[in-house]
Every structure is written in structure tokens, then in C-alpha cells.
């Protein structure tokens, strides 16, 4: 009897193992998961022979592909090829109409913008783009709250955000292709805001019908590619949209393969299984020295920086904050930890946007002066400083550790505290971070986007506010003259980084990626947006 039982158990184990293995070759069953997009066309899952499909290694976004809800750049990497905004920011910072017949007309008082949509632009579900879809998309952005404040200067924003109104009163529809947007006050970056991924236009009826499944099972836009499938943990498949308003693109599709591990990503590239991969700074020295890969490696400088924010509630004396800034050896960090891929900054506002002052010297390392400042501030024996770093960015841990050693010369005793992303976000908001290493990149090519967290929110952990700075920020958005804006923002930055020392820039980085040399026409911009629209495989 027992022998039979043992035999049966063994048989079960074998059957279970075989069944487990046997099923593994099957494709993911779209019916068994809510996180699989509806397939509007025949699904393409790999670079089949003869088809032009670019295979991209990407980090799993783990969220709905909806930038209005999830603001991660890894979401936009995908959605920028599916949905479009009214305008697009070009490489030189200028704006070009995408879904419009031309640039909008602006009234003399700079308050009313008149738009005309391109006729017969189709969404992926076949619906034609109308003014009401634009209104719906902007109202949705406000109702979803996450990035609502992008439109805070539009008339009627406050009422809609507070729930006392159902509509955005500043948005007036004339007909299906004409509408106006009225602002509460002049706001210079407004059109730049309308070029961001957050202001992408969605078809009202389909988006409403999809509800919570928007960006997971369903996502329609007017872009050159349609979402064919999306499975968190697996990948996303995009196929060419034949009715694209700018003419069908050359590629048959884009296939995103979600690979978490940075080493595995590059190995897959080396094995020829993917055509594009980001090169993480931690593995950059390994692969940059590989002669087979060096010619396929490209770099770009994102508009933003890494900085060290000091909590002014913990360190209210500006001299202490200046001493902390002076005790960072940025050149050593750029050279040793970042392998020469970063440069020492001269200003918080990076080069390429208004407000960057290229006459300023690099932020210096001067521990002796830092010591003097601490003594003047009443700390002749130095200070203790807790530096909190988000373990999601392992490079920051290495930088904080290097700073720990560098700051000793200034009498600053650094304790490095490592926390995960959720704890990091929570601690920052609640004032639990005394000193932080963090990064910030612009959402649109304007200094307002760079400095916004320092004036309107406390999300940057410094809790620093300055009336003169806030006024300059108000003046900056109310002015359209570039020269005037340059002066205003340069002055604002001076107050922040060289008078009050609320935050101090650490470095400007260069990002690297590997691209299959047979691919042409790929575009990546300084705000991390990736476009496959003009790409082709030779």
C-alpha cells in the first residue's frame, strides 16, 4: 500500500513538473490578466524576419501607462510614441505644433490663447480628434490631481480642483476644431506646459469607458504607434498606426522588454536580443571600455541636476548651510565615483534654458573656509550631519559615503542614512530629512519647471522659502521677454544657491545608452523623452 502511495506521489510530482514546464512555452493568456492591453491588431512579439520592429530594454513601470497619473519617465518612454500633446518642444527649446494647424494666437494681454486643431486627426480607435477631447484631457489632468498644478494658471482651475465646479471655465469650445484657453494671469511657460506628456490628448468617450483600466488594458492616442499589449513585469508591444495624421511611420512596431537588472539589460544587447538599452552609471566603466560597444554608445545631457538640499528647519543659519556646500569635493566625486561622466556645476539652472548664468565659477571645495563659517555660526567644534539617501539610486549612496570622508576636513561629522523610495518620499514631505541627495529634471524647457519645487511646494525636503525669491518667480512667469526672464531667474537662483544656500548643486550628469547601429532617426531629448516616430532599420 505504502509503495503504491509513494509511486503515486512520485508520479504526481513528475506530472506537476512536466505540466509546469510544458505550459511555460505558451504565450501569456490575455484573458487571464487584467493587465493586458486589448489587441487592436495582430500582436507582434519579436523582431520577426522581414519586419521592422525595434526592441527596447526598459525598466518595468509597474503602473498604468498614463502620465496624468504616474509621472515616471519610464512611463513616458512608452507613451510618447502612442499619445501626443498639442505641441512639441524641439531640441533647441522651440515649440512646434503637432495637433494644431499652427501656433496658437495669443491676445495682447497675454491671457487668451486661441487654438485650431488639425482636421481629421484620428485616434487609434478610429474616433476623430475634437476640441471636446482636449477639454476633457485637461480636466482629467486636474481631477486626477497628481500633476494638476501644471494648469493652475488657467481660469477656473481652483473651482475644478476643489470640486465646486464640473468644468474648466477657462476652456471655451467654439466648434470641433476651434477653442480658446483663458488664463488667470499671464504665464510665459504656458505653451511649453502644453507640450508635456502630462497634457497628452485622449479620446473622451473611450477614456471614460475604460475607467481604471486606462493605460493598462486600453490606451488610445493620436501617435504614430498603437498599444497592442501591455503586461507589467513582461513588456509592451506597439504596432504602427496606419492612419497616423503625419503619414504612417517606417517601423512596423516597437517592442519593450521589461528587464530590471542593469547587467542583464546590457547582456541582452550584446547577445543581439534588444536594439536599445540605457547604460546605468554603475556598469558604464565596464562597457565603455569594451571596443565592440564603444561606437554604439551614445550620450546626452538631461536638463536637470543632482543636488544636496539642506533642511532649513534643522540648520536655520545660512552660514552652516554654506559650510556644508563648501565641504563637498565635487570634482573628486565626478572623477572617481561617476567615472568622469559628470561635470562640476556652476549653477542650479542647467545650461540650455533661460536663467543659466555661464559667467559663474564652479562650486568650490574649501574645507578651511567651511570651518571658519561654522566657527562664526557658533560651532567651532563642527557639526553632526545626517545625510539621507534613497537606495533606489545606488550612486547616491557612494556619493554620500565619499562626502562623509571629504566633510571631515571641515569638521562635519556625516552619518549616512539609507532608506527605500517610499520611506524617502514620506520623510521628505514630513520634514524628516536633514540633508538629502536628490535629482530634479525639468518637465518642460523653462526655468520655472526647474525652480518650481523651491517656491510652491515642500517636496524638495529643504523647506526653504524666501519672499524675494517667490516674487521673482512670479515676475518670471508674467514676463515674456527672454532677456528680462534671464535676469530674473539668474537673480532668483543666486538667492537660492549663493546667498541662502538652501540647496547646492552637486553635478551635471551625462546619460548613456547603447543603440543598434542599423537604426536611424531615433530621437531622445533632454527631458528624457524618446521618440521612435522617425526611426528606421537599415
Amino acid at each position, binding site marked *: 500500500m*505504502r509503495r503504491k502511495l509513494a509511486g503515486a506521489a512520485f508520479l504526481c510530482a513528475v506530472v*506537476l*513538473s512536466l505540466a*509546469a*514546464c*510544458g*505550459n*511555460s*512555452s505558451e*504565450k501569456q493568456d490575455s484573458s*487571464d*490578466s*487584467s*493587465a493586458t492591453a486589448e489587441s487592436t491588431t495582430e500582436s507582434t512579439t519579436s523582431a520577426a524576419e522581414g519586419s521592422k520592429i525595434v526592441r527596447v530594454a526598459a525598466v*518595468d513601470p*509597474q*503602473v*498604468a501607462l498614463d502620465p496624468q497619473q*504616474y*509621472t515616471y519617465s519610464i512611463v513616458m518612454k512608452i507613451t510618447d510614441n502612442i499619445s501626443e500633446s498639442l505641441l512639441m518642444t524641439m531640441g533647441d527649446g522651440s515649440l512646434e505644433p503637432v495637433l494644431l494647424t499652427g501656433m496658437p494666437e495669443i491676445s495682447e494681454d497675454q491671457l487668451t490663447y486661441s487654438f485650431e486643431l488639425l482636421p481629421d486627426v484620428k485616434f487609434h480607435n478610429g474616433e476623430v480628434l475634437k476640441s471636446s477631447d482636449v477639454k476633457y484631457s485637461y480636466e482629467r489632468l486636474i481631477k486626477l*490631481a*497628481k*500633476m*494638476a*498644478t*501644471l494648469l493652475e494658471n488657467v481660469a477656473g482651475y481652483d473651482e475644478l*480642483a476643489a470640486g465646486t465646479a464640473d468644468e474648466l471655465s477657462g476652456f471655451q469650445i467654439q466648434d470641433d476644431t476651434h477653442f480658446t484657453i483663458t488664463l488667470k494671469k499671464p504665464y510665459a511657460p504656458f505653451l511649453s506646459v502644453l507640450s508635456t506628456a502630462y497634457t497628452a490628448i485622449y479620446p473622451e468617450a473611450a477614456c471614460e469607458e475604460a475607467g*481604471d*483600466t486606462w493605460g*493598462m488594458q486600453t490606451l488610445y492616442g493620436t501617435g504614430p504607434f498603437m498599444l497592442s499589449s501591455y503586461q*507589467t*513585469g*513582461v513588456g509592451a508591444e506597439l504596432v504602427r498606426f496606419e492612419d497616423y495624421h503625419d503619414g504612417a511611420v517606417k517601423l512596423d512596431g516597437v517592442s519593450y*522588454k*521589461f*528587464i*530590471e*537588472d542593469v*547587467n*542583464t539589460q546590457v*547582456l*541582452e544587447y*550584446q*547577445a543581439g*536580443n534588444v536594439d536599445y538599452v540605457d547604460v546605468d552609471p554603475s556598469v558604464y566603466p565596464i562597457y565603455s571600455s569594451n571596443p565592440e560597444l564603444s561606437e554604439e554608445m551614445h550620450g546626452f545631457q538631461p536638463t536637470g541636476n543632482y543636488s544636496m538640499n539642506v533642511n532649513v528647519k534643522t540648520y536655520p543659519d545660512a552660514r552652516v548651510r554654506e559650510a556644508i556646500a563648501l565641504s563637498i569635493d565635487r570634482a573628486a566625486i565626478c572623477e572617481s565615483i561617476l567615472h568622469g561622466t559628470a561635470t562640476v556645476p556652476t549653477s542650479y539652472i542647467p545650461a540650455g534654458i533661460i536663467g543659466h548664468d555661464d559667467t559663474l565659477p564652479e562650486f568650490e571645495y574649501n574645507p578651511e573656509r567651511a570651518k571658519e563659517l561654522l566657527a562664526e555660526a557658533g560651532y567651532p567644534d563642527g557639526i553632526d550631519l545626517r545625510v539621507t539617501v534613497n537606495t*533606489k539610486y545606488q550612486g547616491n549612496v557612494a556619493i554620500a559615503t565619499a562626502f562623509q570622508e571629504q566633510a571631515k576636513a571641515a569638521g562635519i561629522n556625516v552619518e549616512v542614512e539609507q*532608506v*527605500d*523610495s*517610499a*520611506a524617502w*518620499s*514620506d*520623510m521628505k*514631505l514630513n520634514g*524628516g530629512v536633514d540633508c538629502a541627495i536628490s535629482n530634479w529634471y525639468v518637465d518642460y524647457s523653462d526655468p520655472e519647471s526647474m525652480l*518650481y519645487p523651491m517656491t*510652491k*511646494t515642500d*517636496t524638495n525636503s529643504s523647506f526653504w522659502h524666501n519672499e524675494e525669491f517667490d516674487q521673482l518667480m512670479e515676475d518670471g512667469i508674467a514676463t515674456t521677454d527672454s532677456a528680462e526672464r534671464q535676469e530674473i531667474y539668474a537673480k532668483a537662483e543666486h538667492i537660492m544657491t549663493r546667498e541662502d544656500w538652501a540647496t547646492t548643486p552637486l553635478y551635471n550628469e551625462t546619460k548613456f545608452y547603447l543603440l543598434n547601429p542599423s537604426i536611424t532617426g531615433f530621437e531622445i531629448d533632454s527631458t528624457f523623452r524618446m521618440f521612435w516616430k522617425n526611426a528606421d532599420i537599415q
Partner: protein
Amino acid sequence: MLSYTAKRLIQTIFVLFGISLITFILLQVVPGDPVAMMLEKRADAETIAKVRHELGLDLPIHIQYFNFIKGAIRLDFGTSYFTKEVVSEALFRCFKVTVKLACMSFVFAAAIGIPSGIFSAVKRGKGIDTFVMILSIIGVSAPAFWVAIILQIIFGLKLAVLPISGFDSVASYILPSVALGARYAGNMARITRTSMLEVMGQDYVRTARAKGVRKWSVILKHALKNALIPIVTLVGTDFGYMLTGSMLIEKVFSIPGIGKLAVDAMSNRDLPLLEGTVMYIAFVFVIVNLIVDLSYAFLDPRIRYGKGAA
């Protein structure tokens, strides 16, 4: 036996309840707020309050826990804050992947570990014994992610005979199964050897040999059978670990299993997903332990459960 099983199953409910309470309390204590994660870019106080209200995070803690328990009884852990996927569906989706990896790793570990342990015990003190034990130490001590990278480079990149990552074919499970199973194989080999050596010194084994029973028949029928209890305990617990996923292996090989789901849920403080995942892991361990305990009675007739049991 039946009453013992029923008693253990009832205990399971209390264990799961206790774990749910501890998990819930820990999540309140540990710093981290899903709303702060969602609103990192442009959050003002009003927006934060609005989103907290939408997610029900502004309710008193005991009401939140009560709501969680109410749902958990019906296996309804809610929907993920981030993906909006129903938690039970996400768990099932990942479980299907993890169970494949676990079964293959288990078969690999058991097929290598147990025979090696037996062979090593039989050849005690000889060169082959030393060799097997050195291999087992390497298997136990080599970090799984390191083994994984080495396997990827050799078999995926250089020889190009197996996929580097992914989970869409039987072949793609081979490298992760070996990387995950290596440690368990080493452990199994060591425990099997120790247990076998102990049993092989017993009188009944010597008696069997003296009666002229063939060597391998003695080893497999008389010795192994009696050496199985510690092996089954280890193997059962190992299988439990495998079924709860391996974060490192899943990350390196891009396999969307339970381990990755748990880590993602934790790093996002995606509370419904995290609570669901913790309850799943607790359930797996409780059940695996129960099965291991029950298997003792089959392996050793001296062990009896229920009324009158010693």
C-alpha cells in the same frame, strides 16, 4: 490523523490572523507613504489630503484593519494602488510563474543534491566524498545572483545556447532554475550525507548486510528510508521558500514572479498588494509545514498523530 489535520488547519487560521495583524501594525510603523510616492513631483497639502481620502488612508487605523480583514476572508485584498490590478489576480498571475520556477529548481536541487549526498555517505572519506562536499559548500555559499550572472555570460552570451532572461519558453527557465537550485542542492547533499551516515551505523543496517542483502539494496531500502525524516523536513521547507519566490533570481532573469511582486509592493508601499503577498507567503509556509509534519507518519510508522499518540 484526521483530527490532528483538522486541528492544525484551525490553528492555521489563527496563525494567519496573527500574521495579518503584525503585518498591518508594522506597515503603520515603518516610514513610507504610498501617497507621497505618487505625488512626489508637484504635491501641495490639499492634493495630498485629497488622494489620501480617495484611497481610504484617512480612515482610523482600526477601521482600515477591519476593512482589510473583511476582504481577506473573501480572498478579496482589493486592488493595487499603482497598477489598479485586482490583488488576487496579480497573485495568481505571479504564482503561475513562480510555481514553474520552483518546480524546476526543486527537481534540479533534489536530483543533484540527494543522490550526491547518498553517494558521498557511501564513499565516506574517499576522494569523491571530499569532492562532493567541496561542491556542496560552493553551492551553499556562492551568492545566487553571482551564479546567475556567471551562467548568463557562459550559456547565454558566449555559448548562446540558452536565453539570458525572460520566461517565455522551457529553455528560459533552465538558467534561473540552476541558479536558484544550486544552493538548495548543496544543502540537500550535506543533510542527506549526514543523515545517511547516522543511519548506516545502525544495527539493522549491519544485520541486513550480514544477511547478504545486496549493498545498494541495503542503502536504498533500509538506510535511505530511515534517513528520510530530516531530508524531508529540509526539502519541504526549501520548496516552501521556492514557492514564495526569489527576488534576486527573478530580478536578474526578468521573471515576474511572487518575489518581484512582493519587493515591488514593499518599495511602493502598495498596501493592498503587500498585504495580499504577505498573506500568500504565510499561507504557503503554514501549509508546507503541515504537509511535512503529516508526511512523517508515512515515513516512520512509529510516528502517530491524533488520540493516543505518544
